[in-house]
């Protein structure tokens, strides 16, 4: 069984992926009977071409030892995870390199689907790399993946409406109310739909309030007062004039569109909104500014949830050695820079944030780096998916949150989720 997919896929690449074949030929000249090994890289679908470029470049640089075939996963994170899980549960030998969302390494490591990074590979894979990003790839003290790109949210605002950006949620709501009274665009755009993005919002608020969703050993819910404070912030926004009426259906892209349509004054979102604003609304763009994510309490700066992709090597890969090497190449400085400039994704290498090429198109690089340095992690547990569903289900819609009760509910649900007991909604 295991042979079939890889044979098929090799045939496929010959038939359909002319580009891949071309690059393979360029890489090895006449490969002969053995030829370069094809490594299959599964990662999120990228339209910019940055990932394909990285795959081609590494294949060429390997001196004919391997080529990398970039296989796109679905757009949604859930779909990506399902595809990967299906293949790994099937012990697919054709999965060499996996692009994992930062919340999955624990699950994949616990299931034995990805290999540990040790020794020299570990050192090379973590050198100059942001600490929070490395922590996302670490499970029970061992490294199971290496950070590819990283990501974080900033506060985006319009300086034609707001002179100085608010430093706390309370300030932001007050500013929005003032704007509303003046009849100006005033909404706060944030991810309020019932999906993982809502968990991210909650997590950011909990860590910003000095707490965490799980205990450090990831065996039980922690929550407590910071969680109640976080839930209160969410409810307060949802019930204020600052809330977008479609808050309970909004994800990152709806936020971007709302901000571009001019109805909002604030937006909490990833840096992809910046080039988009430049392209779609050049007249608003000069007023489109950024600031650190607002804090929950004045005395403690926000700790924003880190996002991004970690690269792992599949446990059933027949070319693990090459896969480790190829992974290091895919995340090297050049490729991360391309991915940042063309794909719009912040790198995980610290030194890149000082590079002139990057800061030219990332004028907010310093703020992103600062946010990443103080970033919080989402609960690290193999049951993250279930925990996240429990969170987003309980806190949805945000306007109906009852902070004390919901956090108490959540405690029980997270306990069940950690034991993978019962149904998920």
């Amino acid at each position, binding site marked *: 069984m295991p042979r079939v997919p890889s044979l098929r896929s090799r045939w496929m690449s010959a038939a359909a992926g002319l580009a891949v074949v071309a690059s393979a030929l360029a890489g090895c000249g006449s490969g002969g009977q053995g030829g370069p090994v094809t490594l299959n890289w599964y990662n999120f*679908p990228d339209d910019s071409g940055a990932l394909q470029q990285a795959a081609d470049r590494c294949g060429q640089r390997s001196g004919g030892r391997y080529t990398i075939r970039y296989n796109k996963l679905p757009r949604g994170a859930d779909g990506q995870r399902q595809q990967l899980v299906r293949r790994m549960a099937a012990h697919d030998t054709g999965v060499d390199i996996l692009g994992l969302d930062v919340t999955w390494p624990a699950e994949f490591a616990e299931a034995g689907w990805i290999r540990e990074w040790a020794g020299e590979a570990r050192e090379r894979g973590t050198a100059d790399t942001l600490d929070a990003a490395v922590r996302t790839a670490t499970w029970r003290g061992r490294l199971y993946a290496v950070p590819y790109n990283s990501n974080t949210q900033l506060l985006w605002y319009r300086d034609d409406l707001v002179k100085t950006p608010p430093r706390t949620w309370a300030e932001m709501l007050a500013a929005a109310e003032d704007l509303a009274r003046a009849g100006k665009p005033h909404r706060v755009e944030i991810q309020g739909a019932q999906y993982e993005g809502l968990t991210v919002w909650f997590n950011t608020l909990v860590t910003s309030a000095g707490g965490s969703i799980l205990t450090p050993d990831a065996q039980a819910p922690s929550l407590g007062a910071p969680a109640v404070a976080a839930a209160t912030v969410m409810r307060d926004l949802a019930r204020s004039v600052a809330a977008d009426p479609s808050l309970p259906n909004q994800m990152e892209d709806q936020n971007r*569109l709302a901000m571009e349509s001019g109805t909002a004054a604030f937006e909490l979102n*990833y840096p992809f909104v910046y080039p988009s604003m430049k392209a*779609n609304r050049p007249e608003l763009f000069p007023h489109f500014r950024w600031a650190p994510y607002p804090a929950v309490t004045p005395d403690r700066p926000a700790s924003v949830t880190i996002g991004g992709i970690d690269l792992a090597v599949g446990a059933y890969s027949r070319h693990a050695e090459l896969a480790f090497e190829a992974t290091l190449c895919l995340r090297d400085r050049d490729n991360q820079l391309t991915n940042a400039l063309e794909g719009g994704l912040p790198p995980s290498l610290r030194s890149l944030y000082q590079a002139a090429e990057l800061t030219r198109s990332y004028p907010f690089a310093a703020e992103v780096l600062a946010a990443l340095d103080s970033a919080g992690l989402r609960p690290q547990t193999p049951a993250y998916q279930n925990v996240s569903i429990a969170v987003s289900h309980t806190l949805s819609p945000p306007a109906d949150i009852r902070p004390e009760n919901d956090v108490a509910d959540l405690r029980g649900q997270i306990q069940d989720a950690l034991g993978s007991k019962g149904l998920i909604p």
Partner: protein
Amino acid sequence: MSARPSTRLSTRQARSLTGWGIANLAVVLYALFPVWWIVALSFKDPATLSDGDFVPRTWTWANYRGIFRTSEFTRALVNSIGIAVIATTVAVVLGTMAAYAVARLRFPGKRLLIGVSLLIAMFPPISLVSPLFDIERVLGLFDTWAGLIIPYMTFSLPLAIYTLSAFFREIPWDLEKAAKVDGATPWQAFRLVIAPLAAPGVFTTGILVFIFCWNDFLFAISLTSTTSARTVPAAIAFFTGSSQFEQPTGSIAAAAVIITIPIVVFVLLFQRRIVAGLTAGAVKG
């Protein structure tokens, strides 16, 4: 909407005609407006995509050019067509054999056959997805054409048997005997008399089964994982916007329009037959 006009048909011809006109128009609008909306979306450019206008202010082919530029969509289209055609062919062949037996022959186990196909027709596909996934991955069928053809064929067999047996009961089989009395060989009798009578029913069933296979989403998202077997409804989930979080609305709309075209063509060409096929089963059942 139809009740009024039909009552006084004889006395007020003109009013009745207007009434029917309105009723017809209402039905046509009802049937087509969501279709028009997706067509309109597919012709909008990114700047006007979210303007909510029912008719695009500027028309562009960009979304179509976009999806045909990469193999993501074209592969899926080839998969969709190939898988649906093969599954339809096999289902119709097997269905014809079984339906002939059901319609014309006496044999034990006929009830069992009918019971089994009824059971399958009503089985919730979701219940089968995970076991099928497990089995297919052991047999190496996961993410292959065969891996989708097999469930499609299976789940359309009840439909095929059902519709075909209704058609076959209508065929005047005695004509065949008459032809042979007139000196035709069995082959001639079949070719000249029975085949032409049976062909429309078989063809109609083929269309219905094709529509069924073309439509599937659940198996397509569950039993594929690369472009080697992914069909269009599933491939839509793989389209990308210009960045990670952006929705590729235009591409989705364009792809949606493309896979609606065959359906519209079938409907335009074979409206009579499809209606006959759908109604045949209901009456005879």
